C-alpha cells in the first residue's frame, strides 16, 4: 500500500520536477535543431511509458493487495494481449528510431562547400589549424612534432606552408557557414564538445575523425573535452567565437602561417664546420637521444648545453666546456649528468670531427638575449608547451595559478608557508612543480625540462603579464 502511494508520488514528483526544473538543454546555437526534435519525440514516448507503467503497477498493488479470503487468478498466458503489447512497443520503437536515422544521415553527409578547420587535442589544451589560401591542409606526422613545430607539419610539404596556426585554445568561426572540424590528437583520446552546438566527437591519436555543424548565433561558446584524458581533463577548456564574416576574416588574417612561425625561429645561416657537425650528428644517430630544441630525451638536450653548469650523478658539478664534451663522446659513462642513465655507447671520432661537433653544439647555444627576444620566446614557449592550458593570463582561476601579476606576488603554499614568486621559486616550480604547490591547487603539473635560457625566457614573459 505504502509502496503504491510512493510510486504515484514518484510519478507526480517526476513530472513536477521536469516542468519546474531550471535545468534543461543548453540553448541551441547551431543547425542541429533536428537533434533536439528527435530527443523530444523520444522524451514524450518514453515519458508516457514511464508514467503508465508506474501508475498501472501502483493501481495493481492497491487493488490486488493481500486479503485472506481471496485467491489470485490462474492465467499462464494470454497470447492476444502479448501480441498486442509487442506490436505497440514495436510501433513506439519505430516512431523513435526513424527520425533518428534520418537525422543521422544528415550528420554523416558533410555538406559540399563546408569549410574545413582542424582541431588538435593534447594534454590539456586545444590547438587549431586553418588550411590557408590554398584551401588544403598540409600533411602531418607525429615525428615532426617539436617545440618549433608543435602541429607536426611536414616542413617539406608545399601545402603546409600557408596553413594558419592557432595555439591558444580559442577558435573563431564565421556565422551561418557549414564547418567541418577534422580532429587529431597527439597523445591520448580527447573529445571536441561544444554543448551549444550539440555534436561531439573523439580526437584519436593515429586517425583523423570529423564532425560538422553550422553555427547560427554570434557569440562565445564553451569548448570542453568530453573524453577522459588524464588528471587535467577538467581543465582542458577552450572557446569558440562565432563572428560575422568580416570580423572572422580580420582575425584570421592576423594569425601566423606555418611558414611565418618557422621563419621567426631560424637563426642565421650555418657555416661549413657547423654544417659538418650537424651532418655527423645525424649520421651517428646522436639526435635519437639528444634533442637540439631543448625537448627532453634519453640524453641531455644540446640546446644551450655548452657553457651550462650541470650536476653529475656523483654530485659534483661541472661546467660543460669543449673538454667535457670531448670526454663525454669518447668515454661517455665516466661522467653522466644527473637524471640520465649511463646508456650511451662510446664513439671514436677524429679531432676534426670532434671540432665540427663542438662547433655545432656551440651554434645551438648561441643566443641573442635581448629583452624583447626573451619575452617573445617565452610567450612562444608558453603557448607551445601548453602552459596556458592551465595558467590563465587574465587573472581567472584555472587548474594552475594565473600568471597575471604572479611575478613578485606573495603566495601561500599548501604547507602554509608563504613565499615570494621570484625567479628562483618560478624556476623550481617549473622543474619540480609538485614540491611547492600554491594552496588551493592540485599537484597535477608534470615536471618540464627546460634549459636555463628557456627558463629565463619564460620568466621574462611572466614578468610582462601584470
Amino acid at each position, binding site marked *: 500500500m505504502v*509502496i503504491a502511494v510512493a510510486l504515484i508520488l514518484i510519478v507526480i514528483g517526476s513530472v513536477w520536477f521536469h516542468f519546474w526544473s531550471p535545468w534543461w538543454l*543548453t540553448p541551441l546555437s547551431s543547425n542541429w535543431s533536428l537533434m533536439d526534435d528527435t530527443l523530444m519525440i523520444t522524451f514524450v514516448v518514453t515519458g508516457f511509458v514511464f508514467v503508465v507503467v508506474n501508475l498501472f503497477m501502483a493501481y495493481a498493488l492497491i487493488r490486488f493487495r493481500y486479503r485472506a479470503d481471496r485467491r489470485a487468478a490462474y492465467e499462464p498466458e494470454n497470447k492476444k494481449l502479448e501480441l498486442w503489447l509487442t506490436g505497440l512497443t514495436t510501433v513506439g520503437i519505430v516512431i523513435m528510431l526513424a527520425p533518428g536515422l534520418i537525422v*543521422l544521415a544528415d550528420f554523416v553527409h558533410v555538406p559540399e562547400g563546408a569549410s574545413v578547420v582542424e582541431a588538435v587535442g593534447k594534454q590539456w589544451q586545444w590547438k587549431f589549424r586553418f588550411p590557408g589560401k590554398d584551401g588544403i591542409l598540409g600533411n602531418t606526422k*607525429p615525428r615532426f612534432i617539436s617545440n618549433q613545430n608543435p602541429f607536426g607539419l611536414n616542413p617539406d610539404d608545399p601545402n603546409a606552408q600557408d596553413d594558419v596556426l592557432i595555439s591558444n585554445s580559442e577558435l573563431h568561426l564565421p556565422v551561418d557557414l557549414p564547418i567541418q572540424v577534422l580532429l587529431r590528437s597527439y*597523445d591520448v583520446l580527447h573529445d571536441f564538445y561544444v554543448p551549444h552546438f550539440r555534436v561531439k566527437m573523439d580526437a584519436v591519436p*593515429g586517425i583523423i575523425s570529423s564532425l560538422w555543424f553550422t553555427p547560427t548565433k554570434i557569440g562565445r561558446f564553451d569548448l570542453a573535452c568530453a573524453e*577522459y584524458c588524464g588528471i587535467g581533463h577538467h581543465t582542458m577548456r577552450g572557446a569558440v567565437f562565432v563572428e560575422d564574416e568580416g570580423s572572422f576574416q580580420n582575425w584570421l588574417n592576423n594569425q601566423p602561417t606555418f611558414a611565418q612561425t618557422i621563419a621567426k625561429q631560424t637563426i642565421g645561416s650555418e657555416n661549413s664546420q657547423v654544417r659538418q657537425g650537424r651532418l655527423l650528428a645525424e649520421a651517428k644517430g646522436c639526435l635519437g637521444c639528444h634533442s637540439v630544441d631543448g625537448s627532453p630525451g634519453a640524453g641531455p638536450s644540446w640546446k644551450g648545453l655548452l657553457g651550462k653548469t650541470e650536476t653529475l650523478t656523483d654530485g659534483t658539478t661541472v661546467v660543460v666546456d669543449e673538454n667535457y664534451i670531448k670526454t663525454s663522446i669518447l668515454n661517455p659513462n665516466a661522467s653522466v649528468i644527473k637524471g640520465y642513465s649511463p646508456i650511451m655507447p662510446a664513439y671514436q671520432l677524429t679531432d676534426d670531427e670532434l671540432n665540427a661537433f663542438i662547433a655545432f653544439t656551440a651554434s645551438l647555444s648561441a643566443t641573442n638575449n635581448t629583452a624583447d627576444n626573451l619575452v617573445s620566446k617565452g610567450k612562444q614557449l608558453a603557448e607551445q608547451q601548453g602552459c596556458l592550458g592551465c595558467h590563465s593570463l587574465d587573472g581567472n582561476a584555472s587548474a594552475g595559478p594565473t600568471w597575471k601579476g604572479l611575478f613578485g606576488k606573495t603566495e601561500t603554499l599548501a604547507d602554509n608557508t608563504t613565499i615570494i614568486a621570484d625567479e628562483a621559486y618560478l624556476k623550481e616550480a617549473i622543474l619540480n612543480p609538485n614540491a611547492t604547490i600554491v594552496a588551493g591547487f592540485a599537484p597535477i603539473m608534470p615536471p618540464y625540462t627546460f634549459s636555463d635560457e628557456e627558463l629565463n625566457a619564460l620568466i621574462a614573459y611572466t614578468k610582462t603579464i601584470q
Partner: protein
Amino acid sequence: MAHVPYQEALPLHEPKSFWTRYVWSQDHKVIAIQYTLTAVAVGLVALVMSWLMRLQIGFPGSFSFIDPSTYYQLVTMHGMIMVIYLLTAIFLGGFGNFLIPLMVGARDMVFPFVNMLSYWAYLLSVLVLMASFFVPGGPTGAGWTLYPPQAILPGTPGSDSGIVLMLVSLILFIVAATMGGLNYVTTVIQARTYGMTMMRLPLSVWGIFMATILALLAFPALFVGGVMMLFDRLLGSSFFMPAVVSMGKMLDYQGGSPVLFQHIFWFFGHPEVYIVALPAFGIVSDIISTHARKNIFGYRIMVWAIVSIGVLSFIVWAHHMYVSGMNPYFGFFFAITTLIIAVPTAIKVYNWVLTLWQGNIHMTVPMLFAVAFVSTFTIGGITGLFLGNVVIDLPLSDTYFVVAHFHMVMGVSPILVVFGGIYHWFPKITGRMLNDTLGQIHFWLTFLGTYAIYFPMHYLGFIGMPRRYYAYEGYQFIPESAQDLNVFITISALMVGAAQFIFLYNLAWSAFKGKPAGSNPWNATTLEWQTPDTPPSHGNWGDRLPIVYRWAYDYSVPGAEKDFIPQNQPPAGENPGGAATT
C-alpha cells in the same frame, strides 16, 4: 540429464574437518556464501569510494586529500569493483552457486573441485586488485573502461604499476569466471533431476544460465584485450598504441589502434550489462510470482525474451562508441539493433506488471525490492532509448545523463534485486528470517534515496555537464544552480550509503538471532524450498533426488487445496498443472 542416475548413485562424502567444510569447501552452498561475502566486502570499499567522489563533486575543494589523481582513482576503482567484482561475482558466483543445484534438483555442481578453484581464483583476483592501492602511484585512474593510450601513459594516475595490477587482476577474475561458468552451464544441462525439463526451470535458473553463456563468450574478449594491453605496457608492443608524443616526448609506439581496444572492450562490455541484468530478470520474476501468489505471466515468452536478449546483446556493442571516431556509417546498424533489443526487454516489464494483476499480493520486504526494481529498471531502460539513438547520443554521450542511465539500469536495479534475493533466500541459507523492521528501513532509504540521486542527475546531463570532471569551474554554460543540485545528490548518496550498514547489521544479527524460518516460509513452489533439511545439508536431498511433476509456477491453481503446489508434488489423479506443464 544423463548425469542424474549417476549422481544419485554416488555415495555422499560428507566433509569431516572444519577446514574442508567451511574453507576449502567443495559444497556449492558454502562456495556461494564465500563468493557473496567477498563480493560484499569489496563492494563496501567501492561504496566508501563513491562517498568520497561525491563529496568532491558536491563540495569541491573542501577535502584537500581528494586531489585530481585521487578523484580519478576513486572513480575508476568504484566502477570496476561494482561492475565486475561485486555484481558479476555475486550474481554468478553467489546466486548461481546457491540456486542452480537446489533449483534443478542436483546434489551439487557437476565439478565441485573446479567450483572451489573458481572461488579461490576470484579471491586472488580481489587481493591483487586491493594490492594496487599500496603500490607506488596507487591504483589506476584510467576510468573503468581503461581506454588506451591514456591508461598506460603518464598523466594518468597509476600508469606505472596500478594499471598492470588491474589487468592481471582482471585476467585472474576471468579465469575464475570461466571455471565457475563451465560448471553452471554443465550443471543446468546435465544435472537436472527427473522430470525437470528446460521449460519447467524457474526463471532464476534461466536468467543465470543465459548470463553464464554470455560470460563464457564475452569474457575471452576482455581477456585478450587485457593481455594485449599488458604487452603494450610491459613489452612495448603497439596493439593499441599509435605513434604519440606524450608530455613532449615521442614514444616508440607506432601503428596501433586505440579504437580497436574499444571494440574489444565493448564486445565484452555490452554483454556484461546483461550478465548482470539477466540473473536479475530471472530472480525478480520468481520473487514477484511467489509473493503475488500468482504464476508468472507468459512464462514461455519470458524464456524467449531472456534468450533473444542474450543473443542480441552481442551485436549492439558499438552503441557505446558513436562518438569514438569509428566509421560513422556503423551508427545505422548499431542504432537499429540497439532499439530492437528494447522490444523483448519491454515485454519482460509488461509481464512482471501483468503478473501483479489479479494476484493476491503480499507486500513483504523481498516484494518491495522487486517492485522497486520494476520502477527503476523502467527508467534505466527508457533512457537507454535516448542513448541508443545516435543523434540523441551525440549531445548526451559522456555527460551525466549517461552516468544516471547506467547507474539506474545496471547499478541500482540489479542491486535492488540482490537485496530482494537475499531477503527472499536468507531463510533457506541460514534457517532464520531477516528482521522485517530493519528490512523496511533499509528498503525505503535505499529506494527513495537512489531516486533522489539519479532522477535529477539526468537533467545535469541535458545541460551537457561532462562526466569524469574533477571540478567544473570556468565553464560558462553550466549554471551556478547546477552546484546546488550536486550538493543535493551528494547528501542523498551519503544517506543511501549509510543505509547499507543497516542491511549489514541485519544480516549479521539475523544469522544468529533471527526468527526461525521453517523450511518454506514464503510457501513457494520451487525445489529449493522442498529440501529435507533447512539449511540444506551436504548433498541437498538425502538418499533420493526429488522428482519433478510440474512447472515452477503452480500458484493459486483453481481447485487445489492450498494456493501453491510444489514442483515435486505428484499429481492427484489428473495433472492439475494444466497444459503449460506438459
